[in-house]
């Protein structure tokens, strides 16, 4: 039981990271558009985030340094400021999309107005941040977000072609740009920069030290593994429900509709609850990531482990980012489109986010006996190479496919 409670950080980072509002729709679009042949991209992305999350958690356990402190130390002033500004812009865009998404989901339950529920969501998230301890935030949003497991059950109940699913996990050569657009997007969705900023800062919040190496591994592997399973579930179920009917999902309601097919109203309600808490978790991930990054770059005292009123600059920046996200969401911008742009624009920032983790993880002077072993080193550099390729390919594929359309 204790272990289950201890993997909350990995769960919230994962479901808030790559099962957020945009990715839910993106996974469903991938299923309806290219179907199960794109499945292999999910484990590729998930293994990548597992490797880097485990590495960043280990770095925190040894050095007590979260990711943006590494960015600052390794890059110097100009490049770290560029990384900060780029990551803040992207994170706040994503935050506003999540708040907008919460408005949409709540409106499916009560049908008042999206705008009203965006405001209600802002108050609810602010109250949760203020009143709940860090561990409580992780558990409430992480574990209730696991209602999204309904998509795994749905994908099984819809009686898929197992041979086809098995073949989907084997990469194949493909000439269609749309196929590669979804493959790149699925891999990139698992590697969103704010996940790793939140994960490493969360490890500091939880006070991890050298005795927490097992907890770190459990969080990285089980938490992100669960997120990956949900991604697979949505993609497979969408390929079963939407692809044969020629439906291209465009909204979060379409994603909820998938779970309604095998389980009627119960499936719908579970899906909506899961989406609500996953998107709520993503709102918290992004708001904290933005405030963590700014505070760590500026050298301020930061963290939920202290009283928020004792660290006014961190608290004000957290509130400021939430309000900025709210203001953008209230313009009525489509949250799905916003996250699509955020994912694509985030890809060039991904290499800048992950390189310092790899450099420090490989540095025996910092890590001592916990330095990366040969496997972590090889996999780390291989994934870093892949991330650089994605950074170049993503904008080109976005333009070439008209956003996968």
């Amino acid at each position: 039981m204790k272990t289950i409670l201890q993997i909350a950080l990995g769960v919230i980072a994962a479901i808030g990271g790559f099962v957020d509002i945009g990715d839910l729709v993106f996974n469903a679009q991938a299923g309806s558009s290219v179907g199960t042949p794109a499945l292999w991209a999910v484990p590729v992305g998930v293994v990548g985030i597992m490797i880097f999350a485990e590495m960043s958690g280990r770095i925190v356990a040894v050095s007590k340094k979260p990711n943006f402190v590494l960015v600052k130390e390794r890059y110097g002033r100009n490049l770290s400021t560029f990384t900060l500004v780029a990551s803040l812009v992207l994170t706040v865009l994503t935050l506003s999309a999540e708040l907008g998404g919460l408005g949409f989901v709540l409106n499916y339950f009560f049908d008042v107005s999206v705008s009203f529920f965006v405001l209600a969501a802002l108050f609810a998230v602010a109250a949760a941040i203020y009143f709940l301890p860090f561990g409580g935030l992780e558990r409430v949003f992480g574990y209730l977000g696991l209602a999204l497991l309904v998509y795994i059950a749905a994908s099984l109940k819809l009686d898929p072609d197992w041979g086809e699913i098995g073949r989907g996990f084997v990469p194949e050569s493909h000439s269609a740009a749309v196929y590669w657009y979804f493959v790149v997007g699925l891999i990139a969705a698992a590697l969103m920069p704010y996940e790793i900023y939140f994960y490493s800062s969360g490890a500091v919040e939880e006070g991890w030290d050298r005795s927490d190496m097992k907890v770190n591994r459990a969080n990285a592997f089980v938490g992100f593994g669960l997120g990956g399973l949900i991604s697979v579930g949505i993609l497979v179920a969408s390929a079963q429900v939407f692809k044969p009917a020629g439906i291209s999902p465009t909204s979060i309601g379409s994603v909820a509709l998938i779970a309604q097919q095998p389980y009627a109203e119960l499936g719908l309600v579970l899906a909506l609850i899961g989406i609500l808490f996953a998107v709520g978790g993503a709102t918290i991930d992004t708001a904290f990531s933005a405030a963590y990054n700014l505070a760590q770059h500026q050298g301020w005292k930061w963290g939920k482990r202290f009283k928020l009123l004792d660290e006014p600059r961190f608290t004000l920046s957290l509130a400021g980012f939430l309000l900025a996200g709210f203001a953008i969401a209230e313009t009525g911008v489509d949250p799905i489109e916003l996250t699509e742009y955020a994912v694509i624009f985030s890809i060039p920032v991904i290499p800048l986010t992950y390189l310092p983790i790899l450099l420090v993880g490989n540095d025996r002077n910092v890590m001592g006996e916990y330095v990366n072993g040969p496997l972590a080193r090889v996999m780390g550099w291989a994934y870093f190479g892949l991330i650089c390729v994605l950074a170049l390919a993503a904008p080109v594929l976005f333009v070439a496919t008209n956003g996968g359309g």
Partner: protein
Amino acid sequence: MRHRLGTFVVLAVSAAPFVGCGGAITPDELSRSIGTLESTAAEGALLAKDVARDRTKATFARVHARDLSDVVDHEAEKLNDAQADRSDVAAAKSDAIDLADRIGTALGQIQTAPGDERGGRTAEQALNRLSEDAGKLADGL
């Protein structure tokens, strides 16, 4: 230089959705637009089927039908504002606007009475038919 290149990529990607605004609609653009109508009608039919079988929440059915209806309205507005150079494209564009109107009406039935199972059945049949019509129209381009 690298920063300038980065800025260029960002600007280029940001501008991408607006490329193509103005000027006459191409058969490819029209086909994409009709594809959206076909997909929306099919999704509406799926929703209507669940209304007909009492397998959904009324508030969800109403709100989602409204969302789908907004997609169709937006597509109809885009088609209405677009100019067509060729007569065959102009005729298909006109048919697509008419289809959008009928899809919107069928979705409106779910929106108005999300608990009406008989109405759900009628809307399901209508939307399935309209989705097929949209498919045929796109194939003809």
